[in-house]
């Protein structure tokens, strides 16, 4: 059993905070998660408000890029697989709550805001269909990406974010696909830091790479990407040419940032025995 006392979870529920006069703001502030050995504090009520999800797709194709091989022997390019996985992500996320919105950013030379927020997944899917991979650039400037995002969104302003449920939250999911190029903040981290300190902004990363070897920088890149998780609430996932694992990770990314456990504490295995 994960938890012995359901009522403590009820205390953390936003509806209780709003509907009963008994709960005080201090209870919301003190809702902490005791998972494993790490205590991470939640600073926002656990409400399933609409998400505005920015999908950042890296279309760079490096030399020596390998394909995904399925069990039946068929092969698919990395970009094809990520398009397919994102399609299922969009469809499933829309099925969970049709209020969620999606925007599409393409990462190549510089990031391009390809499609503005929409809650119709088919609009994003048709843009995705048109995407083609391109020769990899030598740099990946994360400052440009977060500058672009900061210009396009306006973060909710709540006077008491620990108690007041926000009208929406923003989540950026970066699908990074390069094994040779370290992404860097060439223009400084100020904008990124400003975004990430907001309790209503979340960053997740799905890193799709070649098999790690001495010939590439996969491990270094992965460490760098993990370093982007400053709050402890991000999901930073990696996969190397395993189609099933790629889709499973997209499943994990369906989780609502205000209600999901930390990445360390996810546990999906369903057992028959207690």
């Amino acid at each position, binding site marked *: 059993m994960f938890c012995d006392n359901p009522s403590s979870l009820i205390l953390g529920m936003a509806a209780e905070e709003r509907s009963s006069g008994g709960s005080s703001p201090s209870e919301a502030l003190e809702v902490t998660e005791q998972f494993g050995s790490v205590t991470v504090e939640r600073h926002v009520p656990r409400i399933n408000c609409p998400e505005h999800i920015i999908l950042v797709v890296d279309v760079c194709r490096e030399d020596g890029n390998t394909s995904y091989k399925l069990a039946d022997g068929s092969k698919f390019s990395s970009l094809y697989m990520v398009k397919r996985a994102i399609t299922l992500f969009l469809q499933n996320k829309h099925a969970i709550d049709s209020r969620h919105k999606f925007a599409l950013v393409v990462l190549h030379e510089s990031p391009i805001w390809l499609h503005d927020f929409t809650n119709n997944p088919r609009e994003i899917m048709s843009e995705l269909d048109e995407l083609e991979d391109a020769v990899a650039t030598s740099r990946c400037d994360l400052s440009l990406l977060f500058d672009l995002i900061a210009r396009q969104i306006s973060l909710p302003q709540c006077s008491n974010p620990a108690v007041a449920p926000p009208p929406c939250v923003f989540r950026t999911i970066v699908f990074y696909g390069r094994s040779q190029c370290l992404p860097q903040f060439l223009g400084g981290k100020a904008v990124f830091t400003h975004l990430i300190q907001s309790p209503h902004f979340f960053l997740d990363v799905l890193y799709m790479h070649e098999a790690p070897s001495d010939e590439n920088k996969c491990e270094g890149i992965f460490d760098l990407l993990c370093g982007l998780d400053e709050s402890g609430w991000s999901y930073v996932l990696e996969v190397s040419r395993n189609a099933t694992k790629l*889709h499973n990770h997209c499943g994990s990314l369906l989780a609502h940032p205000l209600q999901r456990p930390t990445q360390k504490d996810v546990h999906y295995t369903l057992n028959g025995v207690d």
Partner: protein
Amino acid sequence: MEIRDSLIRGSVMEQYIRQIGYIKLNGFPGGLCSDLAEITGASESLTVWNTRQDNGVMGETVCESGPGDELLIKVPFAGATLTIRLLFYLREPWMPPDMSFSDIQFLSRISTEDLEDQVPALNNWNCSEDDIIAQLLHQLLQLYKKYQLEKLDDDEVLQFEYRSLLKTLKIGEGDIEILVNSPGHNTSSLLVRLPLSLQDVPPVLIDANPGSATSLLQNEGVFVPKLYLSPRVESLIGGANTLALPAVPPGTCLLDYVERVLELLEEKVRKAVLCFETRKQFIAQVLCQFGCAVMEYDAERFSKVVLMFEVKDFHFLTFITLGQLFPQFAAEAKYMAWVRYKGNPTRHNKYAHRMTCKHMVATSKWAITRWEADMHRKPTGVGVDSKMWLVLQQAPKIVLQSLYHNSPREPYSKEYSDQKYSPQWTPEEMVRNVRDVILSNVSSFQMSSIRTN
């Protein structure tokens, strides 16, 4: 002079439009169904019936009115409609409007003193006030109500019922409208605002529908009751047309009947709140057992939770949905589905009705088996339970959905029903049972999802 005239007329027209706008913005003043009042402008010349002439005689006149000079106001009153016509003199804006009413006896029964006393707006017609028309209409409606109450003196039975309602329900005169022998009908009708309190209802269940929570019971003639509910109340307990009003046996006293309807509504509200609490406990239990696998859950109404599970390396989504009226009687669910289908015969509603019928059949079989088992144990006496299990509840809906396969436009999904579900279980047991249903169906789901792709 002409330009000055047209400027003056222009500003008078603007003021007039502002006064109409005031009513549209703030709502029709007074009346239990004021949100259903209609205000329209008339155009062309027309015959105005039933106006009091200068010599005091009632008659008809033909008025040449320009467009926008006349307002037609239809106010629902005690189940019928009172139409008030106001004819404005926009060239002499200091003059109050001429009035006529659909209730032709009204003006003839009202004395000039009554009008002066009760409708002061007529004598103090301040055309520059934005709310002057609203004030006039409010005063006219109050006068009309008073006129109807005076007619009650002619109907002892109705008067007695009126006073009993006021006293027993502890409501004010503003909560009842009576139409005594309405024009064209020989029957009286009565509209009462029931004192249904939504005080203890969690705000989240009704906040989406702003406005008052009103339940109105109308009775026409010898007993033709109708119920009207505001959207705020309907969102909580269902539409007025889905609530079966109790039958009216002969000799039923109006007060008894109204009290019975009020009890029925209060019971519905209590049930809706109980449903909400039960859903909350169920979701809390799901989070307790599977919190590490949660994707998203409805944290306001607790109607849904979505999880991701892995069984033998196969990952999949699970949607668990609780009906708004969970728990709910199987028979009641079937009836409501039938009413919805009859009102709107779509394929979806037909399918939903068929599902509730299947559930009812399963429920009946289960009840019979359970009853027989009980009879074998101990038919009567101390220790026999109250048979509350007969009140069967609607099981949560379980849908498994694929992370890998679309079929063709959406991810492949399948719904699984829970035949063993029992309302006697604790939320913990209910959730364990959901887990068992998932585990027993996962491999067949996996097979069919691959096949479909």
